[in-house]
């Protein structure tokens, strides 16, 4: 009796057909698998993006609050020196916030400075018409300067890193940049003497041995050992009398990189008023 098979073994000629069917099936399945894999990978990336985006904001906010509390309890409510503003990583467990700080009041306040100082700002370079425009409409944001007549992107690009709109208009002499001191009218030798005093014994600013001007009235006395001349002394006393200097600051710029391991999840820039605790500006990238 002849045996019947449900799936009889293919004869030599029919094996080719089976091969083609198998290859076709594998191709279709592979396309579907690649598609499904790509879809899952996109979903995972979207999910990671949303998680990073939402959590990074709160890590940045936590870093701001932590540093505000630290400065309040560590020294005074207001920051004074480069050493206090040294960069530091803030560990929040799964994430680290690498924070770099700079003093907004180390810059020239473009909204509260008199015209003789504004005229010395690089970019403005003695342009009296532009200075009158600046004085007529004080800027709440640096970018407000762009709406002024006579202010073009080139001038703005030159001066934007030298000026601020935050603070009371006085410059913190403990953190003032050489450019700021020049704009205030300090000659190069005086700028050098101030920097030498602040740097301390190791001649490096931002280290533990930095010297501090604790009171504006003692600035000339403290600079005397660094060869302060009579004319420089008179000039400094003029600045002090005109209330252009101070020895502390309350407006700090935070540059924060929220990281997971070595991977930067988000970069955040903020300007914070330490005295009131108010965040004046928040930029996320």
């Amino acid at each position, binding site marked *: 009796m002849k045996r019947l098979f449900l799936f009889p073994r293919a004869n030599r000629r029919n094996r080719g*057909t089976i091969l*083609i*069917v198998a290859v*076709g099936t594998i191709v*279709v399945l592979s*396309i*579907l698998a690649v*598609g499904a894999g790509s*879809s899952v990978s*996109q*979903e995972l990336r*979207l999910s990671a*993006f*949303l998680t990073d*985006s939402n959590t990074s*904001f709160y890590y940045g*906010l936590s870093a701001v609050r932590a540093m505000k509390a630290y400065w309040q309890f560590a020294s005074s409510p207001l920051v004074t020196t480069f050493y206090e503003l040294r960069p530091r990583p803030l560990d929040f467990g799964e994430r680290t916030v690498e924070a770099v700080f700079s003093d907004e009041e180390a810059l020239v306040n473009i909204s509260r400075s008199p015209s003789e100082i504004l005229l010395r700002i690089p970019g403005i370079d003695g342009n009296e018409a532009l200075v009158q425009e600046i004085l007529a409409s004080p800027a*709440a*944001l640096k*970018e*407000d300067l*762009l*709406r002024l007549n006579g202010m073009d*992107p080139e001038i*703005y*690009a030159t001066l*934007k890193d030298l000026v601020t709109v935050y603070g009371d208009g006085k410059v913190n002499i403990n953190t003032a940049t050489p450019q700021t001191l020049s704009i205030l009218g300090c000659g190069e030798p005086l700028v050098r003497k101030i920097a030498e005093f602040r740097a301390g014994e190791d001649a490096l600013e931002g280290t533990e041995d930095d010297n501090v001007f604790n009171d504006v009235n003692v600035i000339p006395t403290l600079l005397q050992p660094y060869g302060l001349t009579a004319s420089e002394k008179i000039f400094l006393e003029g600045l002090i009398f005109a209330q252009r200097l101070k020895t502390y600051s309350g407006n700090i710029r935070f540059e924060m990189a929220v990281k997971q391991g070595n991977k930067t999840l988000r970069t955040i820039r*903020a300007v914070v008023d330490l005295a009131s605790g*108010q*965040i*004046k*500006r*928040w*930029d*996320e990238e």
Partner: protein
Amino acid sequence: MMKNNAFQTGRSVSQGREGFTLVEALIVVSLFAMLGLSLSASFATGLKVWKRAAALVYSQRQPIIGLERLALELRRAVATPSLAFTGSEDQCSFPNVLSEGLWNISYRYDAATEKIYRSAVAAYGEEEAGASRSIINHVENFTLSFYGYNPVSEVMEFMDTWSANLSGLPKAVRVTLQVKGGEFEKVVLIPAGQ
């Protein structure tokens, strides 16, 4: 020696194993045609299903990404007297610093087209090229409310509108978005409004 050849031996092809009969060839051709048809049909069906699934996934992702963009820009809102933060139930407009300049960013829901539009206008210049474009489609409902001090009730609360008369920026904005297949709600904290 003669080769074993059908022509040379005079033997009929159908009796030998060297070729195919017409019937055999037709069967093979029809088998391949059926095979090809079934393969292409399954491939086309697969592609159709794939496209439909991808469209569904995209329509679900679009509101999430759009909402995230709105949240990011709201967080970057700045307070300046030259540009006020204003808002109502279906639109909001606020100053943002973008690429070295001050911009007025607006989000607006158009119920007729069921779309949310975003526009960016330079505060002291021309409108952004290609601005005012839809960022979320198929929106069934979009509602905004603004958290801040209400001078009428004299308490901090969510309000339906935020006008230039109210001081500065709201502390937070609640965004509710309803699209086909889901509803999203997000409360966005505005750091500069704290």
